[in-house]
């Protein structure tokens, strides 16, 4: 397969302010291969691809690409039109589809000339149908995209790229929203397309899928290309070391005996953003000293469940019992005072107030605590001392306790939230996607702290899209699909995947 490369990035660099997002990165892509671009969050993967696609202008370096007649030409930089003309297509992690239009219109959007009087939908439809047959990416064409599943929408995004005759397809974290089965079938189809000459770069931070689906792996760390390796020579340990720069392993729970039930949800129904995301008659019991894992593709009611447990939503029906006490009139303050700690999914939106100081963010849930105030006035020395203690204990690094919390890195923001939540010694901890977007070191730290809290006797509800995380940490697993919870004993990925897709195993 090692013929001549069809794409060659040469010494690309890009800085944002003082941050070197990409430093002197070179990379070749060959015809018909699947290249995995691997790296932790912030390693520079997306920046690199955005330069390739013309969204960003590189500070230095050049990009060479073969044209239709096979000769190497310089790609005009910082110009998406030139990239599209060179046959480069990108599917973003967050889809860019118009939800009220059907698949055909979405695919045509942007590639139809504006001055054309009659639309040629029929011709386009035939071309799309033949593309679907060639690629195996099948999706309904005449239904508004808003009503399709996430997997179908992704197929439309890829078809949109194929329709524009891409030769190089970039996929940004394509499996983040898919069940394991959907991911498998996606990559099976992509493999098929590469045998027709398509070259694919896919961005990921999941080692497992990179090993399973790619031909070659390039690892980025802190904006630099730190290694290329053929997938057949790679293993998880090897690439993890390349990614992190040292040996880090994610902690795994040790079996332990669980205590008596503390939190019970019975027949809880609550409205979510849509019908699929609403809770439907959910029952759930959390024991002392256990991590209860809730697996599932997001958008299946996890948000509504988290909102109920956080006190942000009042359920339509059902009861919540904490240590035999019925919880009525739920609001966030009451949840905190009852000992329910909450780690929100979107830590920037719900977890911190970015422009307020680290110290202020640490006490924001305990404003009536007499340690921090007398008669409504802040005890600033106590607040600062508290913040220093927690910063030490939780190893929160940043420009200091009086600096705005938004200056902290994602991992340190999460540590701040953990510090605030765990300091109250909660009986129940809701951890909603607690490691999403964190680098491996920070994710390992979060996991370790959750396990510690479990051994102190807290009951932990862990909601995660990352099945590997659930399997590593959870004592018991519930699968969420279409707003309903199913308990399962299995720890087999394939069976769990079927449950996540709503098929009884």
């Amino acid at each position, binding site marked *: 397969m090692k013929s001549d490369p069809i794409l060659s990035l040469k010494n690309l660099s890009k800085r944002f302010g003082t941050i070197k997002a990409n430093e002197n990165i070179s990379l070749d892509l060959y015809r018909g291969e699947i290249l995995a671009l691997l790296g932790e969050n912030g390693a520079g993967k997306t920046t690199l691809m955005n330069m390739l696609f013309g969204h960003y202008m590189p500070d230095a370096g050049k990009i060479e690409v073969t044209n239709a007649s096979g000769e190497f030409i310089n790609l005009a930089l910082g*110009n998406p039109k030139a990239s599209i003309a060179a046959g480069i297509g990108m599917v973003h992690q967050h889809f860019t589809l118009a939800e009220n239009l059907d698949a055909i219109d979405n695919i045509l959007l942007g590639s139809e000339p504006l001055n054309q009087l009659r639309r040629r939908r029929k011709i386009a439809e035939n071309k799309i149908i033949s593309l679907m047959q060639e690629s195996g990416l099948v999706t309904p064409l005449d239904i508004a995209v808003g009503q399709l599943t996430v997997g179908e929408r992704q197929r439309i995004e890829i078809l949109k790229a194929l329709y524009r005759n891409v030769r190089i397809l970039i996929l940004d974290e394509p499996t983040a929203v898919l069940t394991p089965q959907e991911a498998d079938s996606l990559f099976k189809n992509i493999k098929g397309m590469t045998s027709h000459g398509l070259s694919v770069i896919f961005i990921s931070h999941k080692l497992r899928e990179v090993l399973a689906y790619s031909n070659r792996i390039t690892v980025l760390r802190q904006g630099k290309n730190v290694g290329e390796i053929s997938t057949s020579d790679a293993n998880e340990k090897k690439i993890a070391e390349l990614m992190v720069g040292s040996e880090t392993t994610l902690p795994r729970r040790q079996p332990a005996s669980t205590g008596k039930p503390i939190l019970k949800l019975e027949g809880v129904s609550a409205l979510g953003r849509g019908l699929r995301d609403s809770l439907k008659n959910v029952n759930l019991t959390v024991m002392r000293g256990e991590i209860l894992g809730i697996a599932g593709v997001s958008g299946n009611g996890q948000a509504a469940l988290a909102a109920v447990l956080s006190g942000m939503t009042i359920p339509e029906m059902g009861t919540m019992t904490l240590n035999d006490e019925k919880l009525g009139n739920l*609001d966030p303050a009451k949840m905190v005072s009852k000992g329910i700690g909450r780690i929100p999914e979107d830590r920037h*939106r719900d977890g*911190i107030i970015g422009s307020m100081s680290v110290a202020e963010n640490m006490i*924001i849930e305990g*404003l009536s605590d007499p340690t921090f105030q007398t008669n409504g006035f*802040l005890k600033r020395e106590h607040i600062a001392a508290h913040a220093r203690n927690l910063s030490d204990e939780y190893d929160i690094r940043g420009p200091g306790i009086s600096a705005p919390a938004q200056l902290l890195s994602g991992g340190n923001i999460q540590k701040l939230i953990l510090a605030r939540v765990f300091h109250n010694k909660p009986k129940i901890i809701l951890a909603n996607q607690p490691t999403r977007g964190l680098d491996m070191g920070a994710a390992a730290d979060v996991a370790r702290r959750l396990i510690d809290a479990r051994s102190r006797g807290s009951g932990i509800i862990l909601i995660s899209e990352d099945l590997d995380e659930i399997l590593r940490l959870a004592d018991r697993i519930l699968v969420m699909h279409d707003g309903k919870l199913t308990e399962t004993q299995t720890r087999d990925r394939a069976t769990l995947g079927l449950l996540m897709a709503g098929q009884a195993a």
Partner: protein
Amino acid sequence: MIRIEARETLSIYWKLGLPVMSALLALLLASLPLNLAGAPILESYKQMVIGVLGSKFAISEMLTRATPLIFTGLAATLAFRAKLWNIGAEGQLYLGAMAAVSVGTGVFDISGLILVPLIIFCGCAIGAAGMVLPATLKIRYGADEVVTTLLLNFIIIIFLQYMLEGPLKDPMGLGWPQSSPILDQGMLPPLMDRMRIHFGFIIAIFCAAVAHFMLIRSIWGLKLKAVGENMSAAKHAGIPVNQSLITVAAISGALAGLAGVSEVAGLKGYLTADLSPGFGYTGIVVAMLAGLSPLGVVISALFIASVFVGADSMSRAMGVSSYLADLVVATALLCVLIGGFVSRYKIVRIAKNGGKN
């Protein structure tokens, strides 16, 4: 292509130099129409300075003018901190003034020691009610407070005109649409003999100091900041968001009402429909200029009052149209606001090489 980016840091020279440069630019720009009007420029600006700082009287006039602006500036500052856009300070000012003349013109002929606090309390309460209503509509029904507070201004001013022609009309007023005068013992005492500067100025400074202290030292201030900066996280953390909004709405309205009380019971003595030449709206400029800082409000109110009073006195001394004074005021404000913008943001040119676009 250009892009606007927030500045991360600003050297001390820029921080001090920008306001000075903005002011100089304003003087330069305003000299053009002054020259066209035939006034000698240097002499005009000399008259302007004399009009603000040249005498005890001039200083008293400037401080008198600044007083209502401090109140309305604080009203805007506190509400804006919570991202509650109170554009209705003008109306709330008149509500406060109406409350002042309702209780202060003879219904209660009691000692000033009771009457003055009563007038202040009523003015604050009615002003507060004038802002709590739109805040409640916002929380209950999602009504945009920019629209409701702005429109309430017109309703209140028409209501004022009705009151001045009807229930509040001075029977001794020779038919003019004005209220009866506030009883002598109900007036805020003057601070200097034969000068217009009155006790309202002291109240305004006191309010600014208290607001500053509450914002940085109290739980209330912390909650307000949280609600204003990130309502979603504030709610998640268990802060009663609606309660915070209502409280700050009441305080904002009360401060605007106090501006009306201070004008009517400190300066004019009776209420007319032209009590305020837009103090409520100018308060927004004062607050923005101050970067929503209560102590900054005092400084920016003094600055704006100086420009107003100075330009006014200049136009009288030089015998040019008073419209020129308005022009000087507007130019100065625009230049200072642009200066403030430049100090916070920079304009970056994005080079576009390589692509043909």
